[in-house]
């Protein structure tokens, strides 16, 4: 517990049983500064000292923003499977990067999919902004690169991290969800006829047309 005091009589905290503040002061060698600067008393149940205060005051703060620090933690503790790699166009800027997913199983095996990550200074209060950089045929992605992943929007919580998002994205390629579609046609194809859907995916990944729409070639 903490007690802070200012010379002109600033800080206070509620009286505690058994230990009056005067007692604390009388036992101390604190001299009150004459000017209006704070000094801090640490109240640690029984003992208190100004020593800790000095340590605290000696702390040097980084200019780093809270968002950057969170991103540093998120990134350096990432344990990505070999199906995912990151690319930083500017390696000194950790807030803007690309994630490449190369699924090694499932319908999208053999494809290379790139997502842009833009993290704004309000991270992790706000989720990262993620878009697919290719035009692909997928029930949960639209032709503009929007991604329907719950934790990127309605279910984002500050306790989630970049790893949760990346794992979520990879899962989209392993288990596309046809029941809550973003690309309705693709979802309907998957529900109606899985085989035909698989053929469509192959066709689209080669840069071909599916039902009149041309998709980007994403093969390795």
């Amino acid at each position, binding site marked *: 517990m903490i007690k802070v005091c200012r010379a*002109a009589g600033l800080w206070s905290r509620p009286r505690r049983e058994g230990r*009056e503040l005067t007692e604390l002061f009388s036992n101390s060698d604190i001299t009150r500064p004459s000017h209006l600067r704070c000094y801090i008393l640490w109240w640690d149940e029984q003992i208190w000292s100004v020593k800790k205060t000095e340590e605290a005051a000696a702390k*040097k703060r980084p200019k780093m923003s809270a968002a950057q620090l969170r991103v540093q933690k998120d990134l350096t503790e990432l344990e990505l499977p070999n199906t995912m790699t990151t690319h930083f166009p500017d390696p000194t800027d950790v807030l803007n990067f690309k994630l490449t997913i190369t699924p090694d199983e499932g319908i999208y095996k053999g494809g290379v999919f790139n997502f842009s990550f833009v993290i704004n200074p309000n991270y992790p209060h706000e989720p990262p902004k993620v878009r697919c950089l290719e035009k692909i045929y997928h029930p949960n992605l639209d032709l503009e690169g929007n991604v329907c992943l719950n934790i990127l929007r309605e279910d984002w919580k500050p306790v989630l991290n970049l790893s949760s998002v990346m794992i979520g994205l990879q899962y989209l390629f392993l288990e596309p969800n046809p029941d809550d579609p973003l690309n309705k046609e693709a979802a309907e194809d998957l529900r109606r006829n899985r085989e035909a859907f698989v053929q469509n995916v192959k066709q689209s990944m080669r840069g071909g047309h599916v039902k009149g729409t041309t998709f980007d070639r994403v093969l390795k």
Partner: protein
Amino acid sequence: MSQVAVAPPVQLSSKTTEYLASSSRYRDVDKILDRRGPWTDEQFQGGQAAKDFLRQQCKILVIGAGGLGCEILQNLALTGFHNIHVIDMDTIDISNLNRQFLFRETDVGGSKANVAAAFVMQRVPGVKVTPYFGKIQDHPASFYGSFDIIIAGLDSIPARRWINATLVEIAEQDENVTPLIDGGTEGFRGQARVILPAVSSCYECSIDTIAPPTAYPICTIANTPRLPEHCIEWASVLEWPKVFKDKKLDTDDPDHIEWLYQRASTRANEFKIEGVTWALTQGVVKNIIPAIASTNAIIAASCCNEAFKLATLAAPSLDNYMMYSGNESLYAYTFEYEKRADCPVCGGESIEVQAEKDWTLETLLEKLEDRQDLQIKRPSLAYESGAPLFFQAPPQLHEATKPNLAKKLSELFSEDASVVITDPNLPFQVTVSIKLV
């Protein structure tokens, strides 16, 4: 850069002059300052010392001259704070007038800080209010360090995070703890808290508990809209970028809102969804939070009550968070929000090391890993700017920064510098100030 408006000279009437000279005018507040209460701290000196500090010396800053800010300025002026400063980058809008009571219809378009300051000085003769029309980020840390107390009545989370981090930095570098009193409201609810930067929990300690802005599933917006909100988000999130490409949506531009409203209405008609209105469109895209005078009054009063207590010691201060809700009868909850050891702003550890210029980064890391008090095993390091210095992951950054390990410190830093270490084994970050010898 913000501008400081020059206050117009106030012509005082003889009655006002007489009033200002009368010592009895503060009779009410003086009762509290001349008397000790049962819960008053031993440190309370009361009497003239407390009055002098409050009325002559204390320099207080109000951040935000909006709903809370107007109330705060009023309360501070009446309580006896004399040297008040106020900063706000906004101009007055007609939708402010239902609660921002220092403004009138003729003030619409004017600077909130300037108008509010002039109003308070006119209404409460003798008080000095210095306005700053501009962004808080445009002022250096030293500006904020010059105040005895800061009260924030902000509606923006990024701005709160910024002032909080700035004050924690000042506290830790200059040993100058400037109390930050933060208020916020939403409908009939609000909270007030007292932050002693670097001492108590800070704003960032609680960032995880603040609900992110409302968002709807993108597939619902695209394909299964049910609510008018879904149609509005469809227009703003999916249609706007499709139609206007890189042109940014300006939610303050009525023509932009009109466009969204039209699109959303058309879509709602197609899906037989009722309830898309102009106001709802604006509310959804601007994330408008309902705001009323009475809630602002309660929260601002609590903030100013704490400022008064801090400045006079007349009563112990709030330790450290009060929530108020008038939604269902009324309810207040006061508690101590605990400091977070891993808070990216006020948490973490800090050490200073003497390092030889010829050491490689690897040598430095070895020395740090040897320290029993740190338990570093897989450290990642970044410069103060946030740029990676040596990252364990992801692989690209690991490869890109690995060569730094073999570099001499003198190649990496031109002078004494700080680096930030994170480690999966550490629940907090460590800031290392390196003194090159």
